[in-house]
């Protein structure tokens, strides 16, 4: 490749500069403010310790449980997918939850399963079994985060497994007299976990910094720190701005700690597996193994969950006058679609086009980044990739406003840093295992570098490329803050309308937009699903 640095400059300009834009204000804050004084004010703010613990505990709990569940179900995920005759539809069905916007998921599942929800009206029980699963309970935030992040991890797990010769490992293990599940745990899991490090960091950071879901599902007296920071940011007195700033920095530090936790649990599991190699299982451990069979049913469970949530949303859209404890609404109203369709479809198309533009740009940048890494034979620190997820979005976007215009192009640009990070997440691990000599080989036949790339690397890395594209699209579709702030209302999307509606009390309308968003994301995932033909061949073993 010629001029790798020149190409990298493109990436730096498009993604790096916007992120660097926060540096002056951070520096200004750190040097000019009486830092210790602000920190004291932050610590003295009513309910600060609870806020902090809400956030930290949510992140730790989500991360730990999601890791455990992903590991116990990883194996069944793959076999179900590899053998389509054994329920191939089930194998992909849980992607339904992956494609569901977070907030839509929360709205649907709480409407269904909260103590006064539809489920408990249908099921003949004396009182709901889960009185703690309701809005503004910490446990419900945990559950929603876990249920929403697990499919994302499965998605990344599938990608990681495709790059491991684990079937041969299992064979070797069996030939040496180990049971398959033992080999799985002792050999495959450590390797898998290593490959999931970055996605797990993403899950941890997301759980820590999530605002919309936390506003919806977490307690508010006090709210988790990220919610409070977002609220301070929208109060404009200097005091609140300082608190917002200090809170953001604190979240950043916590995020670093959470990534440390990811490495810690990885090492813990690794050592545990190593020790198990040379001794037999203790009773607790064999009990654990037996329990881990639940992993077998999890993907299936999520398929049913997706179906049930779909029905729930559909019912919610069309139910008019539906109050506890009625089983069915006073009347079914099919006119809502008719009335709103024009506006919904308008926003949906715009979301789609923006997402396609954003994903295309992100993917190109992603490829450039990867090829630069190859040319320089050095890796860009992974923590940098997490940066767009770490800095509170509203903070970044407010800094961008003076530099941007309210045109579509700028909105697309404002989405790119976030989509790019996710695209890299999906693409880099596979790319790094690619046999780059294929490219040299092609070039010896007289092709230029990029011709050779297009003819060989692109088809061989089709699966990770499409995965990255799809993820980038989903991330773009979900953007609210950059779309509203940078677009200045010139580019209303499905998401901006949905989030605005979510702040009100018209649940049917919210459900209508949620459902459309979900369908849009599902269509993206289905259309961009790699065909089975070439999948996994190009990723080198």
């Amino acid at each position, binding site marked *: 490749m010629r001029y790798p640095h020149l190409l990298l400059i493109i990436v730096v300009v498009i993604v790096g500069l916007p992120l660097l834009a926060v540096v002056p204000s951070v520096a200004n804050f750190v040097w000019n403010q009486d830092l210790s004084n602000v920190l004291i004010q932050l610590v003295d703010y009513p309910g600060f310790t609870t806020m902090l613990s809400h956030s930290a505990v949510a992140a730790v709990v989500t991360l730990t449980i999601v890791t455990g569940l992903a590991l116990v179900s990883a194996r069944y995920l793959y076999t179900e997918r590899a053998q389509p005759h054994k329920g191939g539809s089930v194998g992909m069905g849980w992607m339904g939850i992956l494609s569901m916007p977070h907030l839509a998921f929360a709205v649907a599942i709480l409407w269904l399963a909260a103590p006064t929800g539809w489920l408990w009206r249908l099921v003949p029980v004396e009182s709901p079994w889960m009185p703690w699963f309701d809005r503004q309970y910490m446990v419900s935030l945990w559950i929603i985060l876990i249920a929403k992040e697990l499919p994302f991890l499965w998605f990344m797990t599938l990608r990681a497994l495709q790059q491991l010769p684990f079937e041969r490992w299992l064979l070797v293990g069996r030939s040496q007299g180990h049971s398959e599940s033992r080999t799985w745990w002792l050999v495959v899991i450590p390797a898998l976990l290593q490959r999931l490090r970055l996605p797990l960091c993403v899950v941890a950071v997301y759980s820590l910094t999530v605002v919309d879901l936390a506003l919806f599902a977490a307690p508010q007296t006090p709210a988790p720190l990220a919610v409070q920071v977002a609220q301070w940011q929208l109060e404009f007195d200097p005091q609140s701005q300082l608190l917002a700033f200090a809170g953001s920095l604190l979240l950043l530090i916590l995020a670093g700690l959470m990534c440390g936790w990811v490495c810690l649990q990885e090492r813990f599991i690794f050592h545990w597996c190593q020790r198990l190699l040379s001794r037999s299982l203790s009773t607790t451990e064999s009990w654990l193994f037996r329990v881990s069979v639940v992993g077998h049913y999890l993907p299936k469970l999520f398929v049913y969950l997706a179906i049930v949530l779909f029905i729930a949303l559909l019912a919610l859209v069309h139910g008019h006058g539906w109050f506890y404890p009625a089983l069915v609404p006073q009347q079914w109203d099919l006119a809502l679609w008719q009335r709103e369709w024009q506006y919904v479809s308008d926003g949906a198309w715009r979301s789609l086009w923006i997402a396609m533009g954003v994903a295309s740009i992100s993917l190109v940048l992603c490829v450039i980044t990867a090829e630069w890494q190859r040319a320089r034979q050095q890796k860009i620190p992974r923590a940098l990739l997490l940066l767009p997820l770490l800095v509170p979005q509203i903070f970044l976007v407010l800094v961008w406003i003076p530099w941007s215009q309210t045109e579509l192009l700028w909105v697309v640009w404002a989405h790119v840093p976030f989509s790019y990070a996710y695209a890299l997440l999906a693409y880099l691990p596979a790319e790094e295992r690619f046999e780059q*000599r294929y490219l040299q080989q092609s070039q010896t036949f007289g092709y230029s570098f990029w011709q050779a790339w297009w003819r060989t690397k692109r088809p061989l890395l089709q699966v990770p490329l499409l995965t990255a594209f799809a993820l980038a699209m989903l991330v773009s579709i979900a953007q609210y803050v950059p779309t509203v702030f940078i677009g200045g209302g010139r580019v209303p999307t499905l998401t901006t309308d949905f989030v605005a509606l979510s702040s009100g009390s018209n649940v049917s309308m919210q459900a209508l937009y949620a459902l459309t968003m979900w369908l849009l994301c599902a269509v993206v995932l289905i259309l961009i699903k790699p065909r089975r033909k070439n999948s996994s061949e190009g990723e080198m073993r």
Partner: protein
Amino acid sequence: MSDSVVLSTSPIHIRWRDHQVDLPALQVNSGCVLGVMGPSGSGKSTLLRWLLGDVPNYVQVQGKIYVCGERVDALPIAKRSMGIVFQDVLLFPHLSVLDNLLFALPAEYRKNPRNDQVERVVSELEQVQLVKYAKVLPTALSGGQRARVGLLRALINEPRVLLLDEPFAALDQSLRERIRDWAFQRCQERGIATVMVSHQHDDFNTTTENQVAVMQWPESQL
């Protein structure tokens, strides 16, 4: 023809981490083979990669490369008229044997109608009795077949220099020798200069008419 110099270099200095290797000027005539012998990990492959135009950035190589008198060390890989066959052959797994070979046809051929191109490839395949595998994906070939297709793919591009990086090491000895001799013969016929790297001396004991010079890889300094 067999006397003309195809590949020549100035003295070469290869340095990486705490190793340094100094090589004399190399010269390979048309149809001749330069064998490079040395233990694994001593930097032999680096020499090939440098000739090809792709040196890892932790390695510094000083020297000049000429192909048929023309200086090429500033040219991109695509312009150097060099072909390479790696130990693991690296056929493109997503392309059939036919497509692999079509892919490698010289640039001027690619403008021809597809039928002409296919005809050309098929005639080459006929010579090695592999026509019936044209539509097959490389994964379905045996090791020997794969090696032959790999060689064919490098040769069909009509390079002036062929670089062989421990070729066919995965094959058993008699097969390896047969394929090597076949390759050397083709290079002889077409006046291609060959540089072959190996850690086994046997690899250079060919029965073909090529002039084979074997260079012992020097010890690393520092």
